[in-house]
């Protein structure tokens, strides 16, 4: 379980997060929604240690990780798939996956097999350069790579961006499966609020760096006023 308390962060004079408090429950998908510029990416980057907070705290499964640098997070069970996916295009598909597994010291053959069975398109393309993958395949690759570290918490930044609706549905179903079957906790950042709420259990709406709504996904999706004001559908 991830708990964030009064988190504030910014870029020089710009404040991007203003006292954000939220929880991502164990074994649930929590969606973080909001318009472009709301602070969603900054939130994930601050949680995973890529960006420094100015105040507030981040707790993962009871231990404070506020000042822990990003490279130590995978070993603590947190995997962050960044905005724009972060495929290392110069490496092959399998090398990208192996890299994910190295966070646990050594790469286990079982883990690779598991990822290939979750994402069959990757299996066929193991040894090709990741640069040749389609958008959907890249998204599968980065999620698979994150799972190689066997995380307890997965942070996803706009996985649906630029993907066909059919692929988005496929990827979200798969996430749902992992959450239900393996107790994975997911913090899912999306501008595509409609799709995100259809798969999430809980939702948080950010506006200009502040939490303006925090409720069950069903309640948020049913709130016409909120939808029109912040979610754009």
């Amino acid at each position, binding site marked *: 379980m991830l708990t964030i308390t009064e988190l504030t962060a910014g870029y020089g004079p710009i404040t991007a997060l203003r006292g954000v408090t939220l929880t991502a429950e164990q074994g649930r998908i929590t969606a973080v929604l909001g318009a472009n510029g709301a602070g969603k990416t900054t939130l994930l980057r601050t949680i995973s240690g*890529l960006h420094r907070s100015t105040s507030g705290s981040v707790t993962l499964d009871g231990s404070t990780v506020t000042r822990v640098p*990003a*490279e130590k997070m995978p070993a603590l069970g947190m995997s*962050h798939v*960044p905005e724009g996916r*972060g495929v290392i295009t*110069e*490496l092959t598909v399998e090398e990208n996956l192996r*890299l*994910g597994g190295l966070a646990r010291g050594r790469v286990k053959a079982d883990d690779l097999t598991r990822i290939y069975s979750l994402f069959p398109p990757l299996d066929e393309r193991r040894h090709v350069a990741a640069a040749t993958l389609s958008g959907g395949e890249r998204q599968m690759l980065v999620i698979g790579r994150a799972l190689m570290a066997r995380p307890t918490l997965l942070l996803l930044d706009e996985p649906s961006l630029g993907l066909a609706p059919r692929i988005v549905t496929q990827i979200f179903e798969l996430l749902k499966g992992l959450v239900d079957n393996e107790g994975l906790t997911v913090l899912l950042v999306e501008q595509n609020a409609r799709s995100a709420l259809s798969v999430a259990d809980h939702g948080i709406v950010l506006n200009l760096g502040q939490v303006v709504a925090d409720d069950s996904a069903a309640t948020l999706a049913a709130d016409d006023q909120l939808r029109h004001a912040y979610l754009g559908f």
Partner: protein
Amino acid sequence: MLQFTNTALAGLVLGMIFAAFALALVLIWRSTRILNFAQAPMAVLTTYIALVMIEDGRPYWLAFVVALLAGLVLGAVLERVVIRPVEGKPDINAVILTLGLFIVFKSGAEVIFGTKLRTYPPTFGIRGIEIGDTTIGITTSDFFTIGAVIATLVLLVALFRFTDLGLKMRAAANNQEVAGLLGVKVGAMLTLGWALAAVVGSLSGLLIAAGGLVQPSYMDSIVVFGFIAAVIGGLESPAGAVVGGLLLGFSLSFVSGYLSAQLVALVALGILMTVLTLRPGGLFTATQGRRV
């Protein structure tokens, strides 16, 4: 026929020496996108360490190993202390910095070791190999040079292709932020890249020095060719560095053997321009051009 064979053999040895120098440049370029202009005087310093040990009567190969280790330490310390602060800043900062280091190390070598020519003993024999009753222009020392460079190439390729450490180094070189998110200690990988490069650079310094005369500027003549070899090879790939080095070594040897030694620099430039016109990123590079 004998002249042809000897010219080819001389080209091979020369090419291997260029290759060693180019390999070191490639290692640093891959990991930090910096062209290390200070590489030659760094190699000069470590070679002098070995030479002083040999002159003091220590075992030849102990001095050799100590010089390589000195390179390792020098490369690591440089990256940590001098290069780290300019990483991620505009490329020109690092270029100027390594040029500055070039001057510092070179004058340092002059001050510490003096400018007089000193003899560096050869690795092995320096008499041509005899086949039947002809002596061909390659020596046991030359075989050592060729073997050492090939071994270095094989080890580097194996490191990058087949080991977890090599995978982390490549990831850190290609995308620092993503590598960090995956738990790679990016800083350590960059330091290691510089350290390895400096070891290979030291090796090139020792190979050039062995059997010849040493003074603080003894590397100057090969620096330009080493850079050209690295660029021809595409700056990214260890194999490219070796192919670039050999291409240059053979061409220059034939030009000076059959035409005129005066033409060598001109021909090197010609090869560089031809390769870059046909393949702007160099011979061994992915399709997109290089950002220099």
